[in-house]
């Protein structure tokens, strides 16, 4: 009896130490193993979803029919308004492109993109990720920005030949260099799935107003091209004696309902 007990405790110790070792130095192993695991799992996920998704959609369509009709009316009105704005924007975009070219900054509108369908949301409730159906075979690489549904969605953090993982803005590991208010620089951090973002490094005296939009700055080591809409300021305050403002930012993209996204084929630092 003593021998199995010792063996049990020895195995427990070894496996716990192995897990702690992975926590400490597992990064390089993770990237290689992650690519292999994605390659193995993605085809099976797609196959299972091809069976389960229509059933789920049918149930959801039946339950939410009235909401869908109401949303359709709202979207039709918004579409008409957006068509009108598009004409005006084309002129402004041309001007912006010329200005950015002068400063040698990349412009989102001129960069190639790959449209991808999301086929799964978070594996864990402690992370904010989506899986997409485009991978390295389509030119998608680690670090590429992902946009969709109104703004920046996140960054590609793992790829296989046929799929990739996108870490969303809201994930606690995400941070984006942004321009805020009248050109002030800040860094926006994720606070966890389905939670607002927090903007940091904004001085207490800086004029920042709720409702203003924030955009990628194109700086922060060149992780994102300039000018991608990131979010809208919800609240800003600075406590007594605080060294920076406390700013809550709501992502512009609806990260809880992503069906399609665009991967911007732009490598950081280029």
């Amino acid at each position, binding site marked *: 009896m003593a021998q*199995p007990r010792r*063996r*049990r405790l020895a*195995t*427990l110790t070894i*496996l*716990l130490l*192995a*897990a*702690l*070792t*992975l*926590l400490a130095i*597992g*990064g390089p192993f*993770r990237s290689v*193993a*992650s690519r292999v*695991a*994605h390659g*193995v*799992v993605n085809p*099976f*996920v797609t196959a*299972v*979803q091809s069976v*389960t998704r229509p059933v*789920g959609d049918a149930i959801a369509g039946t339950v939410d029919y009235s909401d869908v009709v109401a949303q359709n009316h709202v979207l039709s009105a918004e579409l008409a308004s957006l068509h009108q704005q598009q004409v005006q924007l084309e002129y402004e975009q041309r001007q912006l492109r010329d200005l950015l070219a002068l400063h040698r900054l990349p412009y989102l509108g001129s960069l190639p993109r790959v449209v991808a369908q999301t*086929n*799964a*949301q*978070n*594996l*864990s*409730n*402690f*992370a904010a*990720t989506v*899986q997409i159906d485009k991978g390295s075979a389509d030119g998608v690489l680690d670090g590429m920005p992902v946009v969709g549904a109104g703004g920046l969605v996140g960054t590609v*953090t*793992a790829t296989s030949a046929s799929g990739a*993982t996108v*870490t969303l803005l809201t*994930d*606690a*590991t995400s941070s984006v260099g942004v321009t805020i208010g009248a050109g002030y620089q800040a860094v926006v951090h*994720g*606070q*966890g*799935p*389905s*939670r607002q973002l927090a903007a940091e490094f904004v001085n207490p005296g800086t004029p920042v107003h709720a409702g203003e939009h924030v955009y990628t700055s194109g700086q922060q080591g060149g992780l994102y091209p300039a000018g991608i809409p990131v979010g809208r300021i919800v609240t800003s305050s600075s406590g007594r004696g605080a060294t920076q403002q406390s700013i809550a930012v709501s992502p512009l993209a609806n990260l*809880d309902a992503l069906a399609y996204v665009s991967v911007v084929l732009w490598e950081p630092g280029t």
Partner: protein
Amino acid sequence: MSWGRWAWLVVAGLAVVVLQLAIADALTVAHVHPELVWVLPVAAGLVAGTLPGMAAGFVGGVIADLFVPTPFGLTAFVGVLIGYAMGRLGEEGIGDLAGSQWWVAPSLGFACGLVAPAIYAVVGVALGHHSYLSPSLALVCVLDAVACALLVRPTMWLLAPLLAEDPLRGPLEPVRGAM
């Protein structure tokens, strides 16, 4: 434990990820979904003892961590603890498929599902991930507990022939008619 059984645990871990991504992700309540990763160490521990239970927790955890940007190895760490605890009970014949009442394994699964995300969050905070202790943690625990309770017995049936005759656990006959 033989290489064959390790290989089966890898297959089981990958299958759990497929089911998680393809089905469980869509079953959300207030932006939270059930996590299936805890089912594997609970079922393996109850059906085959501590060694397979800990191995299932480690392998399943490592595989799950490959798909998320959370600390690599954290799920494995918690999985090993869960697998050890359930394995100790499994070796006493508690929650066994043949010898125990039908509700024992689901009850243990519910308890593990409730505790595992809480341990995960606490260890995560200790590692500097303060956002893990969020208001939604209670809901995460409840959903994981329900998923674990519902799936533990079917998973035990599937794992029993694959993990049979562990040197610590012996053949899959009920050791005692406990509970």
